[in-house]
């Protein structure tokens, strides 16, 4: 089946990708377009540049016009609708795929107002792997109190953090009688529409039957809304890092809500260097840490640690 991200790729390049049968390639991770340079393809196993339409041709060189067309498709001719995302350097499209970009930053009052003259696009495919959380859920679930331990997933980019988070949300929401896990009310604040892959507010990914999704909403405000209005038992958010996120997390914890979240990093020590997370770590707020890597392929669970940093058996 063709990846749904292909409908966001401009015509010329899409033709090439189809020619090389990449539209159905399961192991596709990223498609990178850089102006006046060839198309780079990154899969689970390797990376390479795309050849021209005929094998004798030189690699296809991405033109400025390809970018113009890509931006028209990505923004649906509606820049105003993705204003905030343009400031942050990425757009999330249907299916939860994230398209990152670089270009010329327009600065206003010392802050990035927008990114213009886009010169590089990175199509990152969102993957949904149902069941990957089942191997580890028993290590992060407090069976005694029927609750999720406050859990932090740590990994560098492209190691499957969001995919694992999504599946854990699904398991917690649906419950699993075989594993002795009851269904929980899960609130998801999906600032970048990557967890639920929502299209116009409706989740396209399986995030469970008892999950309330707050899509395209800043994490800090979203968590407060969920606590006030949806009485969640678990709150899941992706990529915490700002002080305001930490304040909202603390608020959630004091309201008795379990937290499931992710952060970029290589190990526990690397995230201790982040000032915003320091207070949470010092106060041993997180009861479980899941460390991911790509060592044996994307989504390798390296370790699961408890709040004292000891490996959980």
């Amino acid at each position, binding site marked *: 089946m063709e990846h749904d991200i292909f409908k966001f790729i401009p015509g010329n390049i899409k033709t090439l990708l189809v020619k090389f049968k990449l539209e159905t390639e399961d192991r596709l991770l990223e498609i990178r377009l850089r102006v006046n340079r060839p198309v780079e393809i990154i899969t689970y196993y390797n990376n390479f540049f795309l050849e021209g339409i005929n094998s004798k041709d030189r690699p296809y060189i991405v033109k400025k016009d390809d970018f113009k067309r890509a931006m028209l498709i990505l923004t649906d001719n509606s820049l105003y609708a993705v204003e905030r995302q343009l400031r942050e350097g990425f757009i999330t499209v249907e299916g939860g795929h994230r398209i990152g970009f670089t270009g010329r930053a327009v600065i206003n009052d010392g802050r990035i107002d*927008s990114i213009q003259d886009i010169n590089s696009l990175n199509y990152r495919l969102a993957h949904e792997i149902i069941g990957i959380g089942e191997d580890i859920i028993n290590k992060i679930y407090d069976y005694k109190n029927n609750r999720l331990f406050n859990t932090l997933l740590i990994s560098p980019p492209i190691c499957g953090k969001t995919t694992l988070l999504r599946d854990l949300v699904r398991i917690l929401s649906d419950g699993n009688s075989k594993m002795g896990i009851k269904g929980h009310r899960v609130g998801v604040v999906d600032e970048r529409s990557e967890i639920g892959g929502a299209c116009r507010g409706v989740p396209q990914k399986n995030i469970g039957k008892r999950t309330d999704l707050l899509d395209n909403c800043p994490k800090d405000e979203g968590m407060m809304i969920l606590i006030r209005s949806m009485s969640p038992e678990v709150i899941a958010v992706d990529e915490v890092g700002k002080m305001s996120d930490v304040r909202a997390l603390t608020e959630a914890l004091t309201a008795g809500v379990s937290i499931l979240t992710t952060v970029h990093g290589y190990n526990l020590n690397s995230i201790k260097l982040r000032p915003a997370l320091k207070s949470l770590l010092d106060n041993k707020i997180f009861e479980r840490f899941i460390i991911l890597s790509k060592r044996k392929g994307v989504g390798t669970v390296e370790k699961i640690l408890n709040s004292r940093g000891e490996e959980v058996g």
Partner: protein
Amino acid sequence: MWLKMLGSLMVLFSGTALGWINANRYNLRVKNLRELQLAINLFNTEIIYQQTILADALKKTAVGTEAPVSNLFTDASKILAAKREKIFSDIWDQVIKKYRYELDLKKDTLKVLQEWAQQIGSSDLTAQRKINEMTLNKLTACEEKAVKAAEKKVKLYRYSGVLMSLLLIILFY
């Protein structure tokens, strides 16, 4: 004699009808201009308060307006949804061309609509609001002109239709 009477009646009827048709164009132009302003207002609400994407905002605008103005928005929305790589102003020019005779708008109004399309979708919310407000002001000015023209010309065309046909009948006799 009867034949002459019948011919005269036919001339009178056609002349009057021609006068009414021409006069009605002025009224229709005013109506279409008002409908266009309503459309831009609805469209503005959609994108400013809902941040609806362009194709959907055009579609919703079409629902709230009457033909032939609604046809512009319906067609533009359909083309845009089907051909996402196309630039909106090109699509808009295409639909304006299609409905030019039905809309019966003056060149200055068409220019206002083309300028609007060139800027829609390509900037942030604040700029979009300004563009819509500016377009509304320009359309109001076009409407005022059209109302004045209608006040002058509607009666003129209606009477001249009747009078010209009467004159023809007298000349034939």
